């Protein structure tokens, strides 16, 4: 895997999605290492996406870790039912799921909706869920969420990573527009809302009425 990524850095294109599930993390770490060559000392302990120099080429990657003051199993179970995701992912309007395959409806720009079909590629109860878009999906994407016990009695550290390759053509432009609204900000908002929902049962809003969305 490392060789392929190095090749990519040399200008050849190896789609992220060709990598196995869980590769998002690994890819981050590897890219970090290759981009970091030339600096003295050993690689540090930080995740690849926080590197000063790593580049993910064509793909947009967003990731965020939050600590949620709830047990691991409970958080896993909520996330594993993908139909729950729109409650905290505000650009996902709906998810239909049969447990293995899910169809996500994403809010696109200019009122156009996009749909993504994903299947589960890794499922370790209480620890990790990973999904990847299927061949017939409009967008190529993969994502992974992992759950590990937080120190002390702080609950669970939840780390989510999503990567996507904007396809060519009209749909591609739309996707690019959508995700270029700062994927990092998007990812951070979603994970904060997930934490709110799990800890307090609701998502904070300053809206004074149900008809306002409170977001600016």
């Amino acid at each position: 895997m490392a060789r392929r990524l190095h090749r990519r850095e040399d200008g050849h294109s190896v789609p992220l999605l060709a990598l196995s599930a869980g590769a998002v993390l690994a890819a981050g770490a590897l890219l970090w290492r290759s981009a970091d060559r030339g600096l003295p000392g050993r690689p540090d302990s930080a995740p690849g996406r926080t590197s000063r120099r790593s580049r993910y080429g064509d793909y947009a990657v967003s990731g965020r870790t939050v600590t949620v003051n709830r047990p691991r199993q409970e958080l896993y179970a909520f996330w594993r039912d993908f139909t729950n995701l729109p409650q905290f992912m505000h650009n996902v309007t709906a998810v239909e799921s049969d447990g293995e395959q899910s169809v996500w409806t994403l809010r696109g720009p200019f009122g156009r909706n996009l749909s993504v079909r994903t299947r589960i590629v890794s499922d370790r109860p209480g620890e990790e869920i990973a999904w990847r878009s299927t061949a017939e999906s409009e967008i190529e994407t993969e994502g992974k969420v992992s759950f590990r016990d937080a120190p002390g009695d702080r609950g669970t550290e939840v780390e989510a990573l999503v990567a996507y390759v904007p396809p060519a053509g009209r749909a591609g432009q739309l996707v690019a527009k959508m995700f270029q609204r700062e994927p990092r900000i998007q990812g951070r908002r979603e994970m904060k809302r997930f934490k709110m929902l799990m800890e307090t049962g609701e998502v904070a809003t300053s809206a004074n009425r149900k008809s306002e969305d409170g977001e600016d």
Partner: protein
Amino acid sequence: MRALTYHGKHDVRVDTVPDPEIVNPRDAVIEVTATAICGSDLHLYDGVIPGVLSGDILGHEFMGRVVETGPGSTLEKGQRVVVPFTISCGACFHCMKQQFSACDNSNPAEKQDLSEPLYGHAMSGLFGYSHLTGGYPGGQAQYVRVPYSDVGPIVIPDGLPDEEVLFLSDILPTGWMAAENCDITEGDSVAVWGCGPVGLFAVQSALLMGADRVIAIDHHPHRLDLARRLGAQVIDYRRTHVLEALMEMTGGFGPDAVIDAVGMESHGMAPDSALDAVKQQVGIGADRAHALREAIMACRKGGRISMPGVYGGFVDKFPLGALMEKGLQLRTGQTHVQRYSQDLLRRIGEGEIDTTFLISHRLSLEEAPTGYRNFHDNQDEWTKVVLTP
């Protein structure tokens, strides 16, 4: 409903806006019976707090009667409640540690985009303040939507009039926490910069906590008189060299603890203040910190600095060397209001603490713009304005 809204620097108006309603399960809606103007509102009025938008409803010191409850609220319709200005979920790591103003969940996710780059973290939501703290509509209005109503609101027993308990929403616990942050022990002297509501309650609290003497500093004669009546010695900084006086008045030690109850719009007679004022005017984001600098210089070696005064950005010429070399400790923060609610309510009920001495003017909500102007321009006489909708 009618509500006091922000329209720009020194421009607040009472407008008609839509009534709030229950949005989230744990919400309640209260009908406001009394609300006050705070020194923190003056920072908004002067346009020195980032993230305040035209049309925002101001006000974070308010109380009223519960008129609607969501399914997750523990309040009952008709109950009288005082609402803390800090909005806190009660369930996150920080709330569990009683660091309510650091609540992780009450600041809406989409409002945190600005505060993370500015402060490193987003703070809790606050009523009627900046969009950095959630942009929640405030309490200088007829009705307020109160999130997490099962956590914050303090139910007030019948028999305690509004004016005796209203300040549980902010300035009383703020003065109290300011004194608590001084770690007062026997023999301690405490100096307090600013004899506004926060400074005066800090004076009162420090004396209750057993300070040997409290020295209050301001230049408004009436405000200094109020401090004197509470039992403080006073320094008028227009008459007296504050640093020299403090050394002399504490036997050459300097105060054991110092409280900055002035904040980012400090007045001052020294060149640093003039420069700060210019910078704040031209908007390059420097807070005016004259009082804080003076407090750090005055504090005895190994002493404590308590800073309830609000700052929003950056400070120049901060005497970091004095802080380090003298081994001082600095404690600050938006008040963790809910931490003190029950204790302070009890003290008010038992007559140990009176807060009504502070109120100088009672106006209707419609007259709120007059209240702002005078609380801002005639600080000596206008010590605290209470509005009734």
